[in-house]
């Protein structure tokens, strides 16, 4: 009943193709966004903003970037963190060296640099696929942070290679407070998520899925493989670059290249496996899981009396549980948490009928 479609007819193709066809979806999303933009900055405290909400949003964006490439276009990448690093350092340098460049323009330029690099490392995908592509993305993962450490210019000759956040100001509004950084991150993530949903609903998105499902067949029906794959790399690189810049500027404040190592790439990959490959919503669910789960685990361990579990052991246990979850998700629910939401939604739409 809650989800009843009765009376909602699409009378134009445009209405049928819109992003959220059901009135309930639009209403729910509108309420959620209103809550996130208007209510959360009022009621949240600094711990929630800095330790949970901002990393959650940034990781969602990174997951989104990888999901466009891996979940939609089927090109496996283990180099997400490298492109995040590229975006962060490029945005930092643009904002540092160009006087009066607006923050958002700096972020976009950082994303563009990451996109260009991503295309460069995606070029081998025209000839190779599958596992072999891992090597190309791993080359990015090792080469880019090495260059960022090696050449002092990138970090403005900081002795330890660390970059700091530029003044966080948009249209004269100072957003340096935790709540301000949260709103800035939220705004960018929501805008890019909408853009992503539009992209995957467009011809390009359908081409990506055709290439993912079988690229030889896609080529046979006339999809330009090179253009499709490289666009996937470019757009994914842009999203990852912006995510990296946000990670540096709004979440950590200062960051060094080692903050973007292989572990971070795996973290982003786990977000999309757990959240759901080929889904926009899944990135948010997966990122929420990745951010909240360690907190939950350490709180649970705190309940065990007498310090039976020491912190080092906790890390090992967390690692084992993560690994096990990956395997379980791949076996039981390859489409991740997003699929569970779809099941739930389908159930509610039919309610009270069973099918």
């Amino acid at each position: 009943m809650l989800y009843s479609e009765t009376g909602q007819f699409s009378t134009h193709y445009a209405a049928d193709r819109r992003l959220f066809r059901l009135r309930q979806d639009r209403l729910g999303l509108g309420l959620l966004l209103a809550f996130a933009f208007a209510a959360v900055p009022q009621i949240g405290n600094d711990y929630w903003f800095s330790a949970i909400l901002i990393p959650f949003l940034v990781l969602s964006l990174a997951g989104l970037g990888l999901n466009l490439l891996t979940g939609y276009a089927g090109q496996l990448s283990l180099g997400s963190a490298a492109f995040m690093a590229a975006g962060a350092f490029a945005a930092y340098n643009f904002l540092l060296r160009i006087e009066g460049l607006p923050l958002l323009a700096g972020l976009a330029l950082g994303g563009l640099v990451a996109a260009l690099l991503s295309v460069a490392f995606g070029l081998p995908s025209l000839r190779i696929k599958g596992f072999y592509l891992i090597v190309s993305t791993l080359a990015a993962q090792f080469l880019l942070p090495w260059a960022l450490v090696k050449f002092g210019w990138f970090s403005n000759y900081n002795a330890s290679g660390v970059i700091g956040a530029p003044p966080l100001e948009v249209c004269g509004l100072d957003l340096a407070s935790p709540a301000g950084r949260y709103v800035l991150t939220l705004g960018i993530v929501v805008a890019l998520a909408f853009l992503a949903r539009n992209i995957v609903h467009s011809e390009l998105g359908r081409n990506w899925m055709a290439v993912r499902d079988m690229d030889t067949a896609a080529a046979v029906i006339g999809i330009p493989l090179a253009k499709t794959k490289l666009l996937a790399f470019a757009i994914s690189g842009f999203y990852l670059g912006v995510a990296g810049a946000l990670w540096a500027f709004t979440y950590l404040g200062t960051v060094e290249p080692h903050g973007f190592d292989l572990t971070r790439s795996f973290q982003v990959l786990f977000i999309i496996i757990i959240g759901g490959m080929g889904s926009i919503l899944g990135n948010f669910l997966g990122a929420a899981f990745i951010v909240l789960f360690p907190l939950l685990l350490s709180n649970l361990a705190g309940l065990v009396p007498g310090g039976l579990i020491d912190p080092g052991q906790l890390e090992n246990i967390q690692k084992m549980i993560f690994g096990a979850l990956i395997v379980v998700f791949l076996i039981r629910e390859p489409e991740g948490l997003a699929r569970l939401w779809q099941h739930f939604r389908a159930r509610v739409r039919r309610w009270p009928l069973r099918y």
Partner: protein
Amino acid sequence: MDFFLEVLIGGLLAGVMYSLVAIGFVLIYKASGVFNFAQGAMVLFAALTFVSLGERGVPFWIAFLVTLATMLLLALAVERLVLRPLVNRSPITLFMATLGLAYITEGAAQALWGAQVHGLDLGIEDVPLDFGGLLISQFDLFAAGMAATLVLVLSLLFNKTRIGLSLRAVADDTLAAQAIGIRLSRVWVAVWAVAGLVALITGLLWGARLGVQFSLSLVVLKALPVLIVGGFSSVGGAIVGGLIVGASEKLAEIYAGPLLGGGIENWFPYVLAMLFLLVRPAGLFGERAIDRV
């Protein structure tokens, strides 16, 4: 010139160590089509188990056998809990499952035996021997000898035994192999157990070199370019790939490194592998895949 030769030989011998890791990959890839990212974690697990048993006073051979039995158990568990439920799924899914497996194995190894660095002494000293003016490490020679023995044993296993015959049959055509009554699950357990043995030997050699610690599981990253250069499906390719990567990496570090500011060892193999891929997408000895729609 002598210096060049020394660097070259040092690189070749280091390459043998990479090949050892790569062989473990190739075995599993051939028999089950799984790109096993957990090979590095298995190396860590085997070496840690062996060293910890040794530190508790268990004699060498008993510790070796107990570790081997543990690796067999691991192979059984992997087949039952990971491979069997994921049968017929895409190779990428299987790869990601082994990523999860790597996390489980690393976590388990460190939860069981602790995270500190263990020394491992195999009784072979790492002293340079003098060959007509060329200095070559005795340990490297030993490692090369071990690798050669391993390859010999594996090729005998593959070519002369019944289980080897079924392994090759499964690698060639899984469906046909099943049709003539080869039990897939057994072959998988066998090949994962053999990969466990390779992991143990790799772990001992690398562990004696670097100390048994977490970074052992990162040797997997060294093996990847080796596989690309040599091809995923050939043991011989793994050896040749290892030699090429080892030698070129050391030569590049010595001769090209200073131009770029040093520390290029970490990414050079990957760039090399990428160049190889652009020319030969299936590696030097790999089988060319033909796509059918």
